[in-house]
């Protein structure tokens, strides 16, 4: 059929309209090229909130008045690396918290005197945390450091041995820091002070600038996409703060909210109550934030502990959100070391999304390519990635 000549201009208009529509629909075509991706206000705000430049100085540690004393940190560092603080003389804190491996180890579960119940936690940025251990059963960093010393499968010694070791090998520095002779102090006081020195050292372990931070800083200056990250990494970042909702728990400059969540990690039938079993420990420990050896003001400090929701049922099977800084450098992953690679972790999050195994995990309908992009983005969170790309 021959086209009605009257219809020709209309057809042209329709075609033009269709072209305009396509241009509008594919508006972020620049983003597809990865050169000038547009970020909306919400995304920009979240990206900035993750940047290391937003990290304030470490908050005070009211329960440890030696927390920022350099001499205490020096003593703590010496004890951290001293393998005499173990049942067989071979295990120090640094055995599992390896500096060459992001201050954790490459094992599914830590190995000291025996095999620990959970994976060794990375300890960079601990100065910013409120709760310690995977289940948060310690409410201060110094209290946490005491746990492994007396754990039979970690250091395997007790506080009396700790006191003797401090007296024998570190008495001079101890006396200088704590203004007292360990020999004349009660064993629990020496034990607590040892923890406070260890905490002062661990507080100095801070994250380093990564390619993601360089990207966020450049974005802050120019408000537009820049060349620091690749197209895949940028797509991964967009998923991270958007559809995949990783930022819900992995938020702030340390990529963790320090709180406890169901991650849907398979446990091979070895059920671990996690946070659900921690409230009892918090209540009974003599080295707690409100305990005898704490320096905190019980009236004004510690609102996060005072008003803690201690609902055992609600938190059963939850574990602390770990930092993602340096994450690609330190497999395996999760509290039980269940996954050997980030790809496995991401796959599991997709698999359990919206299921009863992880009732608060909703990661959207992620494609295989999305997972690859997320993995690419996670690799920008390592400081040594600078060397690979610059």
């Amino acid at each position, binding site marked *: 059929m021959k086209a009605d000549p009257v219809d020709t201009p209309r057809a042209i208009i329709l075609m033009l309209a269709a072209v305009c529509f396509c241009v509008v629909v594919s508006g972020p075509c620049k983003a597809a090229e990865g050169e000038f991706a547009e970020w909306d*206000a*919400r995304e*920009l*705000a*979240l990206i*900035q*909130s993750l940047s290391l430049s937003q990290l304030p100085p470490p908050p005070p540690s009211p329960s440890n008045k030696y927390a920022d004393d350099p001499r205490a940190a020096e003593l703590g560092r010496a004890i951290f690396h001293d393998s005499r603080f173990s049942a067989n003389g071979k295990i120090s804190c640094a055995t599992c918290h390896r500096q060459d491996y992001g201050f954790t180890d490459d094992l599914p579960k830590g190995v000291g005197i025996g095999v620990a119940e959970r994976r060794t936690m990375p300890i960079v940025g601990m100065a910013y945390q*409120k709760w310690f251990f995977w289940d948060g059963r310690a409410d201060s960093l110094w209290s946490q450091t005491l746990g492994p010393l007396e754990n039979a499968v970690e250091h395997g010694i007790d506080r009396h041995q700790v006191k003797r070791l401090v007296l024998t090998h570190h008495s001079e520095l101890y006396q200088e820091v704590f203004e007292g002779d360990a020999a004349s102090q009660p064993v629990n006081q020496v034990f607590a002070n040892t923890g406070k020195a260890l905490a002062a050292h661990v507080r100095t372990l801070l994250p380093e600038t990564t390619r993601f931070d360089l990207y966020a800083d450049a974005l*802050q200056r120019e408000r537009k996409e820049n060349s620091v990250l690749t197209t895949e990494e940028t797509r991964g970042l967009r998923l991270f703060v958007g559809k995949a909702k990783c*930022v*819900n*728990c992995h*938020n*702030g400059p340390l990529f963790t*909210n*320090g*709180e*406890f969540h169901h991650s849907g990690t398979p446990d091979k039938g070895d059920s671990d109550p996690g946070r659900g079993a921690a409230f009892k420990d918090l209540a009974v420990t003599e080295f707690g934030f409100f305990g005898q050896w704490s320096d905190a003001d019980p009236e004004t400090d510690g*609102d*996060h502990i*005072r*008003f*803690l*929701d201690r609902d055992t*049922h*609600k938190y059963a099977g939850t574990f602390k959100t770990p930092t993602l800084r340096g994450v690609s450098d330190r497999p395996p992953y999760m509290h039980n070391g269940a996954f050997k690679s980030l790809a496995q972790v991401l796959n599991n999050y997709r698999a359990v999304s919206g299921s009863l195994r992880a*009732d*608060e995990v*909703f990661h959207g309908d992620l494609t295989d390519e999305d997972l690859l992009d997320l993995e690419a983005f996670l690799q920008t969170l390592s400081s040594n990635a600078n060397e690979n790309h610059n």
Partner: protein
Amino acid sequence: MRWLFLLLLPILVLPETAGAMDAIGKVRRERSADLDTSTTVATSYGTLQASYETDFLEVPLNGVHSWRLSLQDKQGQPVTDANIDLTVDMPEHLHGMTTVPLVQETETPGLYLVRGMNFHMPGYWEVTLDISGAGSRHLLRFNLIVGENPRARDKSVADES
């Protein structure tokens, strides 16, 4: 007798499944596009007005902090001795905070201190106040968007220049 069994079944079973019911009973709600995030809210006839302030420009993400909560009646008079039941939820996530905040009346009439607030995830939060006293009961709700506010960024840009 079967009807009696069916009638009693929920009563017998409910306590055991209370946790699950908590999740099932709630409905996931996304934030509306025109969400009102005012820090002052009032009942529809203005019989009760509540407002809050903190020590911060923005309500902090991941920071335990306190709210100063003020209650006024229709005549602008402070409401004292109110019994305030405070609930905090993330409608998009079906859960609330990891703290249980405490509401304390202060010496200033109509001013209440809420201690232990902690928004541990970015996004849409609802703070609901069930306020009873003087023979009446009111529900008031604050909506908040935490940690996603571009204003903080704008401010830092302004500071640089």
